């Protein structure tokens, strides 16, 4: 375990309270967790006696499974709350829901919600450590951590690396969290997409914007495609999926402008042949399944960091 300085953040809501040292320590610990996942018996007693509640006010089976397996592999008890069919669908407020769940004496919450800031509300109302598993467009910090971890494993370090993130940046919590995290770890982020889906205000230190996908991938060490949802067409952001794909699909043609060593990533779930071609998704550059695998290690490390916290 690597030592880190500064006050230990109580939650992982976003990266505002997290120093680069502490984030690096969390990623270092993910290596240890990865080794656990390579063993025949993939279980350690680190969180024995603790209970983790996954509170998913918005449906996301894959993220929930990833968190629940991560918690179980650390020997935590897991209870899952899903809004559909629960008291929430009967009009219960987030405050009431969380206060009830807190009364069951759970030790930490993993929260997914459609509204930005909902994880902050859970932290306020529960008083327990909260891991944000995605709040609206705002943040999805464990996804960014697993992305960082994947790039780090590939290249040994994030220092000086360039990550191109291509797609519906406007509605993407993955893009926002990566734009917050990667520069802290020394990488440069290029956000790319149609002008209607690329808010100019996201430009910052270490974060540049372009509407030109070829320019975005030129010099990129990693190229990440973001999911483009049909509802963006319906809302008029782009004319059609084809119109989008013609310029922004991550495929062999676009990747021919990227360095040979560049890897391809996607936070999932993919719309094949929309934001990413099958050639690219399944090709030798793809690290998409490694991302999923790394997600468990990173989430184990995050739980460990917040609930045991000797890192």
């Amino acid at each position, binding site marked *: 375990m690597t030592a880190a300085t500064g006050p230990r953040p109580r939650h992982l809501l976003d990266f505002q309270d997290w120093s680069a040292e502490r984030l690096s320590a969390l990623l270092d610990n993910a290596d240890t967790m990865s080794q656990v996942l390579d063993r025949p018996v993939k279980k350690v007693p680190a969180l024995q006696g603790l209970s983790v509640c996954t509170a998913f006010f918005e449906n996301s089976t894959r993220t929930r499974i990833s968190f629940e397996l991560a918690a179980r592999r650390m020997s935590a008890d897991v209870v899952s709350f899903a809004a559909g069919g629960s008291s929430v669908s009967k009009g219960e*407020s987030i*405050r009431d829901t969380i206060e009830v769940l807190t009364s069951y004496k759970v030790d930490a919450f993993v929260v997914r919600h459609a*509204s*930005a800031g909902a994880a902050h509300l859970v932290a306020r109302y529960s008083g327990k450590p909260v891991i944000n598993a995605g*709040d609206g467009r*705002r943040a999805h910090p464990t996804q960014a951590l697993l992305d960082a971890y994947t790039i780090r494993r590939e290249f040994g370090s994030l220092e000086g690396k360039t990550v191109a993130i291509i797609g519906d940046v406007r509605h993407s*919590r993955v893009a926002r969290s990566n734009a917050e995290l990667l520069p802290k770890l020394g990488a440069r982020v290029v956000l790319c997409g149609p002008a209607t889906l690329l808010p100019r*205000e*996201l430009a910052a230190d270490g974060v540049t914007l372009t509407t030109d996908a070829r320019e975005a991938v030129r010099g990129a060490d990693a190229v990440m495609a973001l999911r483009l949802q049909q509802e963006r067409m319906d809302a008029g952001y782009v004319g059609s999926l084809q119109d989008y794909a013609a310029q922004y699909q991550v495929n062999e043609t676009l990747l021919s402008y990227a360095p040979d060593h560049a890897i391809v990533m996607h936070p999932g779930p993919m719309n094949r042949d929309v934001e990413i071609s099958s050639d690219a998704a399944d090709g030798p550059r793809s690290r998409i399944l490694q991302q999923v695998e790394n997600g468990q290690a990173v989430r184990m490390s995050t739980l460990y960091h917040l609930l045991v916290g000797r890192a």
Partner: protein
Amino acid sequence: MPTLTITNIRRPGSEKSETLTVENGLIKGWNIKPEGEIIDGNGATLVPAFIEPHAHLREPGQEQKEDLASGLAAAAAGGYGTVVSMPNTSPVVDDPAIVRALIEKAGRLGFARLRPAAALTRGQNGEQLAELSLLAGAGAAVFTDDGRTNENARTLRLGLEYAHSLGLVVSVHAEDAGLRAGGVMNEGAVSEALGLPGNPAAAEAARVARDLEICAMTGGRLHIQHLSTARALDLVRGAKARGVNVTCEVCPHHLLLTDEALRSFDAVYKVAPPLRTQADTEYLLAGLVDGSVDCLATDHAPHTRAEKERDLLEAPSGIAYIEIAFPLLWTHFGKGLGLQKLVELLTVDVARVLGWPAPELEVGQAADFTLLDLDTVRPVQPETFKSKAKFNPWTGQELRGWPVLTVVGGAVAFRRA
């Protein structure tokens, strides 16, 4: 009506201790022999009772948020003698019988006076004019579709023409609904950082520009509610210079708070139009000083605590703080604006906007006045509010300028314990 004498009071800008006697709802005399019930003013400052041109009192139909009794008592506690209530109730105030019923009920309560605004269109549907002349006859003070905005420009044109012939103002919540889209806060660096859908300043400016053209074309009387952006104020200023018959109000929350407050993700800061930038707040304040902003309004918009504890996408818009509006303004802007100007923005300027006679504290005038303790510092304690909305962004803040006595129609409507 009993006779009432207030002793030991001052008028703004004067150190002289004076006495005011009221009888039968009217001011009987200054510095005459005290008679009737005598209240010691303790040296506080006497000003005309404030007029609120824009408050949501939620009755009928939304009494879980506020009702006439709680809202008008809250207004009186804030030093307001008259409140214009917004018509977006359930049902909408588009029926003369509702206007009459509201006025009649409010009259029995003994708090602030009520002058209901009526809907400009039936059911505030934005298409078909309501019965404007019957509503005016029933006592409607102003016509507005308020937060529903007026997407149909032709309807607004017809409404301005018709209302003008009745001598009444049309007031508008000027936001282009298409540009606003699903925005829940000001669009800008903060909204993008927070990942919350933004409502751009251009949504207000574009709609103000349109409405100014319609107003100029009709010659009607347009009042623009709760102006929140520098750009929109520039447009209003330009129109006034061309002689367009337009007025505008700003709200204290748009002077005191910015979109940075949303970083807390606390929906108490969700309001429409949204909190803008520091540059906007400074520009609006300058507009108050130079007179291009006509008056102040609080847009008192109560909701239940449970509603405001929802997430930012779901929570309703609105801040309710009529009880502390003057202390907020006096504490934060008293030095810059001066007492005289600040009181005008809450009294004679509102009356001018609404086409009412200027309130004066002269013999024979209605005895609507408020007594202000300009010096004592008190914390904001929402749990003591008369309003049902017992929370706001300024809880615990130490303010001075508290109203201590509000008299409406010669009777005590509020007295601070």
